[in-house]
């Protein structure tokens, strides 16, 4: 039996300990906002937070998350109020949208560590997250916008 805390909710489940966290989140918990893209930490679509740190859930055994605080895109805010979500909407970032949960979760960690990131900071932090639609220019703009919003006290 493994105990998990995801988006503040406690779960107990019978699951093989080597199961990647991704499949537990998507299939056991039904939180489908976190995406499967490559299965080997090459695309970032599966990015979630464990204790506030970004991890690729497709290569993270569920046991590593046991007893920790896991946050998925569904837990970022209850009402689209997170500055990154507001900035993503304002800049019309998503196209197909499949990678965007992972992009936003990666960006959230960047902004916590670098509240006013440069383009180079963004490149470094976000290079692990692929977007096949090529929304990168808008991701960059949206991260800068979110940073400005947070600096003005928009952070939650």
């Amino acid at each position, binding site marked *: 039996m493994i105990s998990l805390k995801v988006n503040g909710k406690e779960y107990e489940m019978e699951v093989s300990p080597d199961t*990647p966290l991704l499949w537990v989140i998507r299939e056991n918990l039904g939180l489908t906002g976190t*995406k499967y893209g490559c299965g080997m930490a090459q695309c970032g679509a599966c990015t979630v937070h464990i204790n506030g740190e970004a991890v690729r859930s497709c290569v993270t055994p569920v046991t590593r998350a046991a007893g920790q605080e896991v946050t998925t895109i569904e837990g970022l805010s209850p009402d689209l109020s997170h500055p990154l979500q507001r900035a993503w909407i304002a800049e019309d970032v998503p196209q*197909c949208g499949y990678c965007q949960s992972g992009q936003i979760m990666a960006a959230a960690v960047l902004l916590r560590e670098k509240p006013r990131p440069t383009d180079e900071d963004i490149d470094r932090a976000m290079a692990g997250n692929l977007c096949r639609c*090529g929304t990168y220019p808008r991701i960059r703009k949206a991260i800068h916008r979110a940073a400005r919003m947070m600096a003005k006290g928009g952070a939650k």
Partner: protein
Amino acid sequence: MSTLEMKSRMIENQDAVSFTRRAFLKLTATAAIGGGLMLGFGLPARGEVRDSLTTNAPFAPNAFLRIDRAGKVTFVMPMIEMGQGTYTSLPMLIAEELEVDIDKVVIEHSPPDDKVYVNRLIGVQMTGGSTAIRATYVPLRHAGATARVMLVTAAAKRWNVDPSRCHAKNGVVVHGPTGGRLDYGSLVDDAAKLPVPDNVTLKASAEFKLIGTPHRRLDTAGKVDGSAKFGIDSRLPGMKFAVVAISPTFGGKLVSVDEAKAKAMKGVSQVVRLDDAVAIVAVHTWAAKQGLVAAAPQWDPGPNTTVSTADIIAQLAAASEKAGAVARHDGDAAGAIARATRKVDAVYQQPFLAHATMEPMNCTVHVTKDSCDVWVGTQVPGLTQAAVMKVTGMEREQVRIHNHLLGGGFGRRLEYDGTVRAVRIAQRVEGPVQVIWTREEDIQHDMYRPYYYDRISAGIDAKGKAVAWSHRITGSSIIARYNPAWIKDGIDPDAVENSANLPYAFKDIHVEWVAQEPPTGIQTSWWRGVGITRGTFVVESFIDELAANAKQDPLAYRLALLDKNPRAKSVLQIVAKRSGWGKKLPAGNGRGIALCTGFGSFIAQVVQVTVDAKGAVKPTHVWCVVDCGIAVNPDTISAQMESGIIFGLSAALYGEITIKDGRVEQTNFGDYRVLRINEIPQIKVHLVKSTEAPGGIGEPGTSCLMPALTNAIYAATGKRIRKLPIRMEEAV
């Protein structure tokens, strides 16, 4: 040319409403089927998604909209959203005429129906070929206007006033003289009893309130809070998960699997054997993956074990020596080249490409004794339904296709091979099952953009002027497989796009097409820009070669050949001005220019590139000018250009599927690279204001980019790239 004629014939075959037939034929379409698509789930403005036609609103004057008694408006989308912005721009078309608040409209995917939701430029229900706006610009406005007229008539009757003194605004009918107001919800029962008018007047463009003004996408909320539903997000009670392994060698067969070992893995419930594949069914995808490893499938590799990319290229090269079907013959190109002072020859090669949509292939199916439900994201719901009917032997009413948002299309989801395979698996499984292709399966069993081999020659007179143009295209015919009826006189109209109808004027032109298929089992299909991507690379590269040969500026050289093509000329002039064309650049830098005419649009790009001493190529800037006629949602067009440019960069710099020992060598994003955020150039997009009919924008940004980039490399280094992807050591 032939593409349009072909489509016109198909349109005649549809029981299309007469007004739309006329309106559509006026559009100057050269639609190939490459990029986008449509289907049947619903997504209200706040990003919530639900199945199509779940409500039975009293007022539904056509297949595209419904209004209930509470005034809730639902739009049913004939095209699917796969990132290109149709779930914003198509609602804008309806709302413009219906006079409702677009942000309050609920949006649904359409159910499969090749008649009601036909793409009139193509002939079936399809999102592709950069046709979404072109195919719906009149009919969706007409749908909105028809409903508005009926609601206004209903209100006028109730008030017993002249309907011409009433108008609609923001979901309310207003009687001008008295200021009386009735909201749409209160009128739906009366309106539903009225005859549907045949002729309604559409707004003149000067009256547009929505069309032409940037509107934020309606589908963003669900894409930033995790609630947007893609096919892979389908969840049903009691659902199982399956992973599939297809014969790694093209044309191979399954020989054996260790079923006992597979089933010994915790959670694995079943092993399903197909002729050329095996699926492991389990409680979760991870268990299924573990089961597949344990199953250790053994394969009969079949007839292709020695096939390599080099063999395929050799076959194409040999085929390209033969005469082909003539796609264009003006004057006497062969004679003019023979009489010319000099001749310039080139061979261009473009590789097999995978689509690598971020959402890998997947399909969820529930087969019962008398029904088959399919949850999938597809660009072709009607064709998918027909394919499932064929596999199951069921009738149309028994096969339900539930469409979803697409986690990328790019042409991949114009195919239903994954759905057919999933249905075959689900036929042996009790209850619903989601079949997922791992990324490795997705890349190794894609239906690839064909390898193209183009021979091209020009004759040059004593003054350095090109006097004749001769071009032979060799490659796989996608249309011959997809819809053979579209082949005319041996010509694949897609494969010769932007070659038979190149934008430049030469008195003597000869263009031929030679179909040469790869070995059985290697399937080819649509890929963003399809024929136009192939043709634009070759034509724009060769024009650049001719300019260099004549020691002329590549921009001036092009302009001199475009006197009869003012919109093409204009985008080139504008992009030159905006980029500061001709500006002196530091050593190792260069700028290239290219033009793409196609999908009813005109695009010009300038790319600036740095090539270092080791041959590393870094694009630093892209200027893009678009004349796509009327721009319905201008910011979407900019976004599609950014997207197309980055997609084209990925392909030009890295994109290549290679085959060795009968199998694909690439496996995942590590060896099938796509651009990352730290690699993108600065991109500046400019839209030309126009009142011409709208053109397509999903694909040409990609088509234009590749030659603009390789022309920039030539400017920087004097080396010509004639084979993609770019490798400086292969430049000539």
